[in-house]
């Protein structure tokens, strides 16, 4: 049984102009110890998926209207608020893009970790304090004892993200949701944080849902990847196959946009024409069809569904048969 099994999840928003659907029957699964990357542009539904799992969407405007989110076999959508609080931070933890804004500015780092530990564990303050220091060491925080007494604004970006990760690991979660964990960091720090996440995963055996728009990060960190477009999973499969032989024109387009090093200087950068359609004006048929160079007549009428293709699944009427020439180089980075 998969650790997390999302089945046909459908999430909608009520806006001033009417009801829009942000997620259309999204199905994903993550096994224990596995990393699934959720890839897509801004507005493709990656973060809505993550927030749906933890039930963090604002209740007044957002509603899950269908599907199941099975975590260890139990449907998270059926839990009451108290039970959900017992899951958050305890079994499923989350880290954010911008650690400066995700840490409480008026609380010391150590106290924030201690608080996270004591929310779910009946331990004394001294035990929680010891656990906090151990966690800071585990995330390789330099001089953990001193940093524990610092406020977030006194730390560097990389140290803040380490602190954030320490808080997330406080109760040894089964699943870590990382929402663009390295986007706000500079490139060297980015590599360090990714290596750290990988090492922590090997140590603890937790599963990870990695939300990113950076295919380099996907190549480096994930086992499997799911590509989202306009609220739908359009392609998913093992990372290597997905990145070397994409079957969906959108995935291929994302990859082509990366291959800028092979271009002669001065040539126009490859791009996917057009923009993601707004949720309120989704075209009939495939949402990507208006931007797709491979689209056929059927694409504009009928929404394609996910079907097995090669080692993964793809939702496309005009699958690419030719392997993409792009190969992402995988670089190993030391922690």
């Amino acid at each position, binding site marked *: 049984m998969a650790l997390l099994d999302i089945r046909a999840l459908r999430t909608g928003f009520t806006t001033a102009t009417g009801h829009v659907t942000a997620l259309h029957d999204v199905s994903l699964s993550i096994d224990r110890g596995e990393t699934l990357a959720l890839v897509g542009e801004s507005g493709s539904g990656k973060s809505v998926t993550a927030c749906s799992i933890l039930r963090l969407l604002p209740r*007044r405007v957002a509603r899950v209207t269908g599907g199941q989110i099975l975590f260890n076999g139990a449907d998270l959508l059926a839990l009451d608020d108290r039970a959900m*609080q017992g899951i*958050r*931070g305890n079994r499923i933890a989350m880290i*954010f893009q911008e650690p400066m804004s*995700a*840490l*409480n*500015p008026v609380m010391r780092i150590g106290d924030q970790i201690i*608080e996270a530990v004591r929310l779910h564990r009946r331990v004394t303050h001294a035990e929680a304090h010891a656990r906090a220091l151990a966690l800071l060491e585990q995330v390789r925080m330099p001089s953990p004892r001193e940093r524990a007494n610092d406020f977030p604004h006194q730390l560097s970006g990389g140290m803040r993200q380490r602190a954030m990760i320490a808080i997330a690991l406080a109760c040894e979660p089964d699943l870590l949701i990382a929402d663009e964990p390295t986007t706000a960091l500079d490139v060297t720090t980015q590599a360090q944080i990714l290596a750290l996440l990988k090492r922590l995963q090997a140590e603890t055996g937790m599963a990870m849902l990695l939300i990113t728009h950076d295919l380099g990060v996907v190549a480096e960190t994930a086992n499997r990847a799911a590509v989202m477009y306009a609220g739908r999973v359009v392609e998913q499969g093992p990372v290597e196959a997905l990145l070397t032989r994409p079957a969906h024109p959108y995935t291929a387009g994302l990859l082509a946009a990366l291959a800028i090093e092979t271009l002669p200087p001065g040539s126009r950068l490859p791009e996917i024409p057009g923009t993601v359609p707004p949720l309120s004006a989704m075209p009939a048929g495939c949402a990507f069809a208006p931007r797709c160079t491979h689209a056929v007549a059927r694409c504009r009428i009928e929404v394609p569904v996910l079907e097995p293709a090669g080692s993964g699944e793809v939702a496309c009427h005009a699958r690419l048969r030719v392997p993409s020439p792009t190969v992402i180089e995988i670089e190993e980075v030391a922690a």
Partner: protein
Amino acid sequence: MSMLISRLPAATTPLAWWRFARAYPSATLGLVLMLAVVLVALVGPLIFPGDPWDMAGPPMLWPGDDPGYPLGTDFMGRDLATGLAAGARVSLLIGLVSTALAATLGITVGAIGGYFGGRVDAALMRVTEVFQTVPKFVLAVVLVAIFKPSVTTVVVAIGVVSWPATARLVRAEFLSLRSREFVLAARTVGMSHARLILTQILPNALPPVIAMATLTVATAIQTEASLAFLGLGDPNVMSWGTIIGGGREQVADAWYICGLPGLAIVVTVLAFNLIGDGINDALNPHLRQRRH
């Protein structure tokens, strides 16, 4: 809270105090005046013991006429020094306790409204508006008059008329803070609403509330004196307002009976206003000097 304190200089050495005084001259004047009033409230009644209501000496003694009554006596021969010292205690006590009450009410209403929003917020804000539309002093007079004047009723009356501004301020802070990412992050670690409000949002909302509370103390002291002037003070305690009220008919012959407690009120209210303004300036990023 801790951030606010860390922003103030750790003025432990004379040099650090001097720098602080140079950087915030008006706040320093406020602190000095407030310490003086606190000192009078603490040791005044020890230097000038006795019941301030007692007819201690000859009436209408001008300050300096008799060394035994350095600030003179009123038309009934009550010692003004004893009265002013006792009044300092009453003013500070009522000012601080009623502000604490107003802050508690205001924070509770503002936090709940701002955090939960929607209908709860709308209902609480309508109630707040009702209190804001009624003239504050009139409401305080009515409340004290209904429930016999005593220290407790005066404190409650001032607290009840002073909370709406704090509630509005706290609500505004909560509205902006609740959508900040660290609050979302705190939810992802499994915090309850109460814990989010108390440990995550409120400490971040406190600095402007503290600045406002300091100004509320000043207003509360004024209101207390006004109530006492109208004869709505506790009949068992000597307030500055009571002395002024008692001396108003002798203003032409003996202005000092009204003047001295009046001066005491001016100094105390000024002190709290200066401190409140100082905290406001220290919190205002446009006015604050960088000191790192």
